[in-house]
């Protein structure tokens, strides 16, 4: 196999526009992690099986390892870094951090981004709706209960009910 050729691309990530020259076979995950140092987005499986690499593309939760960077042009991409920081936590980040819903932390960014997509379209999910919406992201540490609870708690906060 020949080494891939380079492409000039433009990506809009967390509201910022980036002009990049990248190999054509690079995924969005490769660009985030290795060109833009946005290493909050993880990878655990390489092929869309685990969900650790989940980001939002036009508000839909997608696997960044399964989208070529060239395909992500002209889309609004949001990563965990764009959701909030330690000074200004998103309610999901806060409930995950405080309730030990993030054990090793590897699936956490993907889990939170997938939960964000859910809460943006359904601010009042039931437990089974949370489980269905997060079923594309796997966790090896928690047994999931604390994650479901963190999402339900964040939904309450976002509705102004606490």
């Amino acid at each position, binding site marked *: 196999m020949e080494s891939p050729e380079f492409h000039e691309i433009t990506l809009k990530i967390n509201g910022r526009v980036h002009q990049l020259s990248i190999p054509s076979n690079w995924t969005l995950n490769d660009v985030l992690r290795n060109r833009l140092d946005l290493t909050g987005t993880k990878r655990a499986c390489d092929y869309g*099986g685990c969900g650790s690499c989940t980001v939002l593309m036009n508000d839909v939760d997608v696997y960044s390892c399964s989208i070529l960077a060239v395909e992500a042009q002209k889309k609004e991409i949001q990563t*965990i870094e764009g959701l909030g920081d330690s000074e200004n936590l998103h309610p999901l980040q806060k409930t*995950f951090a405080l309730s*030990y819903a993030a054990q*090793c*932390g590897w*699936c956490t960014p993907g889990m939170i981004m997938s939960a964000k997509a859910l809460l943006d379209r359904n601010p009042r999910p039931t437990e089974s709706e949370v489980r269905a919406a997060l079923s594309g992201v796997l966790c090896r540490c*928690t047994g999931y*209960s604390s994650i*479901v609870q963190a999402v339900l708690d964040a939904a309450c906060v976002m509705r102004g009910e606490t």
Partner: protein
Amino acid sequence: MRQELFTVGKPVPPIYGIEKATGTLRFPADVNLPNMLWMKILRSPHAHAKILDVDAAAAQKLPGVVAILTHNDVPRVLFGPYQNEIYPLDEEVRFVGDTVAAVAAEDWNVAEEAVRAIRVTYHVLPAIHDAESGAKPDAPDAVLNYPEAHEIQAGDIRPEQLGTVGNIIGLREGGPTVVNERGDVERGLEQSDVVVERIFRQSEVNAVSHEPRACVALYENGKCTLWCSVQDPYRLQDSVARVLNLPMDAVRVVATNLGGAFGVKVTGRFAILCALLARQTGKPVKIWFTREEESLDSHNRSALTHYVKAGANKDGSLTAIKVRTFLDNGYWPYGGLGQNIAFAICTRPIDLYHRCPNVKWEVFAVRTNRPSTGPYRGRADAESHFPIESVMDELAHSIQMDPIEFRLKNRIHEGDDLCSAPKKVVSTVWVEEAARKGAETIGWERRASLSTSSQGARKKGMGMAMVIHSCGSNPAGTSQAEVTIDSEGRISLFSGTADQGSEQQTTLRQMVAEVLGVRLEEVGGCNADTLTCPFDSGPFSSRTVYATGIAASRAAEEAKRKLLEGASLLLDEEDGNLDIGINFVWARSDSSKRVRLGELARLAGGSISGKGIYNGKNDQLFAYGFAAAFAEVEVDVETGEVKILRLVSSHDVGRAINPMIVEGQILGGAAQGLGYALSEGFYFDPRTGTALNQWFLDLHTPSILDTPNIEPVIVELGEPTHPFGAKGCSEISYVGVAPAIANAIYHATGARVTELPMTPDVVLKALQDARRSIV
């Protein structure tokens, strides 16, 4: 110790929580350095072969390739936890996926292309694909070149690890690796009122840590720094120093946070080769495993076969346990420690059923041409409890006794001597309390009438299992800790343990804050950086909260003593009249007499520090963790599907330093145990040794839809050998789930499932066997 506790026992938020939830925490895979090269590994397509020739000329010429290492280019130095791993690269390859060569290139595309361009000529050798075949006297050798075959410097290796007869690890001619024997097992069986005989088979399983292993190595000015996904940074430091022939202080390993580890992220070839390439190229080098590599180049739980025969009398006394176990060790058990796991398998369940007078348990730990096996969560006890707890259930059923009462009648008691820890006695045993509280939680009294609520093909049942597992009292390890107070009054804990997700630093800092009498927010520190933190054997065997906890408490005690001594002189008060609180040492009688902690540090020359060490080698008391698992299931007898209605995991934790973390560990362990029970197996082609399901989804770890809301139960009755009464509990909840579910299926259907994982086809076969035995 004060009666009233301020921080210990509180569910304080984990210290790394915010960094994890904002994605700002840097794992080894997240380290990127300027001018960094990417490393890729060429892996063996054969289960067993000798490399005759490696032709890397074409690969070397590719633009962007900087260096290639083959077995001809690396120092022939042993490495690994006990210096008993053979060379960083060897001419013998021992499993499909073994390391053949390593490439460093300017990007990973080029590195991959170069790996494909390397031409290797192999002489294929006979291979061993399962333990029982490998144990036969005429079996070919699974591994030809192993450290015992070489001259080893005295002191490099512990004598009990030496010696192998054929593929069986151990010293006995043709015999088992380990045998645990007492009484007369044959007579015991003959004289039993009832005897149960079964064969159990368990598949190999992978830990499936979500972070694939990564290493970034930087070599500058004769010093090597590695950011690496390992639980044993000090052993990696030692191995890199040996292979690169550097003094220990020229090697620094940072392993502060890992994305899950579960016991298996240990010193390996990939990291040593990364360091060698960094030195050779003069540039930083990074390797980050693919999922396939993470599955293959790991340490799996062994595949096992157990031949079990056990007897009991009608009064509920256990009379005899006879087991012969074949353990597939893979090409190389972690650290060469095949004996250790074999020993734990045949002794711990016997300690749990201490009252059983007649025992013979033989374990054959056998080398095969499979990936390495090692200390995955619940090590040894997950392996042994499935057969033993299944047989206990059946014995209880045969004598029509309640399975809980039968177990409790034969259980271990405080002060009993231990065959799993010779010359030691068990300190506390809160297993009865765990079993009773768990039974109450699930509603054990409903069990008798549960079958009446079964509908059609869906049968309901309830089962339980009792468990013993290490809780940190492990004489093989050492933990050190240091607590410092600087001239600003800041308190720091330095500990060598990596946080692989169990947030031990939170728990350790809670203990330090409690000893010093300060608020948790005032305690900072760092962990698992060999440059700044004192030695720790690492977070294995649920040992951190116990072993490192004792070391950290001792360090804090020493620092406190120095603070009080300093304050006593300055304030002219007896030590006993002084107290520490919010940045000051105060005189109890007169609160205007006080001095800042920082001031005391300044007067002492800039810093006050206390050191603590724990190694339980000479302690006579040995602490064990105990648990009971309960499952309520619904079995579809037409499809073989098992639905978990309830899962209760009840634990003797001594004392929960942080109940939120303790519950989180119990839930996580039980969820992994659920995967081991129902869906997870790591399979290989029995003719070629090629992995069949090394990819993520094919390993079938439980998803959010497969995992019920597991119910944790915590029993806190203390443990006198720990300053706060704690026992480690991060693994034990894994162990009981599979046998509890198997016993619930038996209760629901009368079918005894003897194979893991209990996939629908396995359950259907058990149902057919049960029907046949009735006819």
